[in-house]
C-alpha cells in the first residue's frame, strides 16, 4: 500500500493530464461508437423493409424520417398529415426529422418514442380507411414525390398516370420520380418526367383545400 502511494506521488501533473486525456479519448470513442452502431442498425432496418415496395406498415415509421419522407413512402398527402398532426405547413417542417419536430412542439414521448410518431401512424391508418384527395399542397410536382403520392393527392388513378406517361406501372409506383426517370431511362430525363406529370396534374388534379 505504501509502495503504491509512493508510486502515485511520483506521477507528475503532466502524466496525470496525459492519463486524463487517454480516459477522455476512450470515453468519447465508446460513446460515439454507440451512435455509429445505431446508424448501422437503422440502415439495416431500411434495407430489410423495402420502402420502395409500397403498402408499408405504419409501424415502420422511425424518428429520423421527415414528414416528406413519410408522405412519399406511405403515399399519404402531406396536407393530410399536417392537418392530422396539427402542424403549420412550412418548408422546413416538411424536411426535418420527426424527433426534432416532436421536440419543437413539446409533444413528449409515448412508450419511449416521440408522440408525433403515434399521431402519424394513426393518421396513415385513418387515411387508408378513408382516403382524402387534398390536392398537391406543394402546388408543383417535385422529384421526391412518387407516382402513388401524386395519384393519391390528386385523386387520379395511378394506372392512368402510368398510361399517360407510357411507363410500366409494375414495381414503380413508390419510387421517387427522379429515380423512376433514371431507371426507366425516360426520354428527357427527370425534368421531362416532372413536366409531363405536371401537365396531367394541372388538367386533372383536385385543387388544394388550403392554399
Amino acid at each position, binding site marked *: 500500500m505504501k509502495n503504491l502511494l509512493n508510486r502515485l506521488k*511520483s506521477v507528475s501533473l*503532466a502524466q496525470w493530464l496525459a492519463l486524463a486525456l487517454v480516459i477522455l479519448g476512450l470515453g468519447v470513442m465508446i460513446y460515439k461508437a454507440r451512435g455509429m452502431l445505431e446508424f448501422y442498425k437503422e440502415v439495416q432496418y431500411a434495407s430489410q423493409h423495402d420502402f420502395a415496395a409500397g403498402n408499408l406498415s405504419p409501424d415502420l415509421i422511425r424518428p429520423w424520417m421527415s414528414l416528406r419522407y413519410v408522405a412519399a413512402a406511405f403515399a399519404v398527402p402531406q396536407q393530410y398529415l399536417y392537418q392530422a398532426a396539427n402542424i403549420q405547413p412550412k418548408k422546413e417542417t416538411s424536411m426535418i426529422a420527426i424527433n426534432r419536430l416532436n421536440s419543437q412542439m413539446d409533444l413528449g414521448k409515448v412508450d419511449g418514442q416521440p408522440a408525433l410518431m403515434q399521431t402519424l401512424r394513426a393518421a396513415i391508418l385513418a387515411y387508408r380507411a378513408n382516403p382524402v384527395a387534398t390536392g398537391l399542397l406543394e402546388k408543383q410536382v417535385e422529384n421526391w414525390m412518387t407516382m402513388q403520392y401524386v395519384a393519391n393527392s390528386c385523386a387520379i388513378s395511378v394506372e392512368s398516370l402510368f398510361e399517360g406517361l407510357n411507363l410500366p406501372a409494375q414495381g414503380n409506383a413508390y419510387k421517387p420520380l427522379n429515380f423512376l426517370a433514371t431507371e426507366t431511362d425516360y426520354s428527357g430525363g427527370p425534368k421531362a418526367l416532372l413536366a409531363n406529370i405536371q401537365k396531367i396534374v394541372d388538367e386533372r388534379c383536385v385543387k388544394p383545400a388550403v392554399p
Partner: protein
Amino acid sequence: MSIDLTSLALGWMAAYGAPMVAGILFFGGLGVPVPGTLVVIASGAFIRQSLLDAVSTPLLGYLGTILGDGLLFAIGFFASHWIERRFGATSAWKSAQDLFERRGGIAIFLTRWLLTAVALPVTLVAGSSGYRFRKFFLYDLLGELLWFVIYGGLGYAFGSQWELISDFISNFSGFLVGALALGVGIYALVRLGRKPVKNAPADGSV
C-alpha cells in the same frame, strides 16, 4: 414550443435561403457554436428538395465560411502580441511555433473537414503563432472545399433522410476527435515515462 439552435438555423435557412446559409457558416467559422456541419448537410438535402438554390447556396456558403475562418485567423494574429508578451520567451511556446510551422498545414487542412471540432483552436493557434496567412488560406480553401463537397454531397444524396446521415457524421467526427485525444494521451504518457521523474527517489526504488 421549444426551439433549439439547430432548429432555428434550419428554419432560417428555409426562410431566407443562401444568404442565411452564408451568414450561419460565417459565424461558425468565427467560432460561434452553430452546427456548421449539419447546416452543410442540410443545405445539400434542401438543394435536392428544391428548397435552396443549387448555385448560390454552395457559393455563398463557401464564401461565408472562408471569411469567418479568415477573420478568426486575424483575431489570433492580433492577439499574438499579448501571447508573445506572456509566453513568447518560453521554450514550450517556441517549440509549438516551430511544430506548427512544420506540420500546421496538415492540421489546418484536416480540421476544416474531418476533425471539425478542433478547427477553432487550430485557426487561433495558426493566427497567433505567426503562421503565414497565404499558406493558411491555401489549406483553408482546400479543406473547406472538401467539407462542402463531401458533406453537402451526402446531404444531397440522402435527400429527405439527411438527419440520419447527419447523426452518423456527427458521431464519426466525434469518434475521430476521441481517437486523437487517446493518441495524444498515449504519446504523452510514453514520452513522459521515458524522462526521469523529478520527485522520484534517486535510487529508483519506489
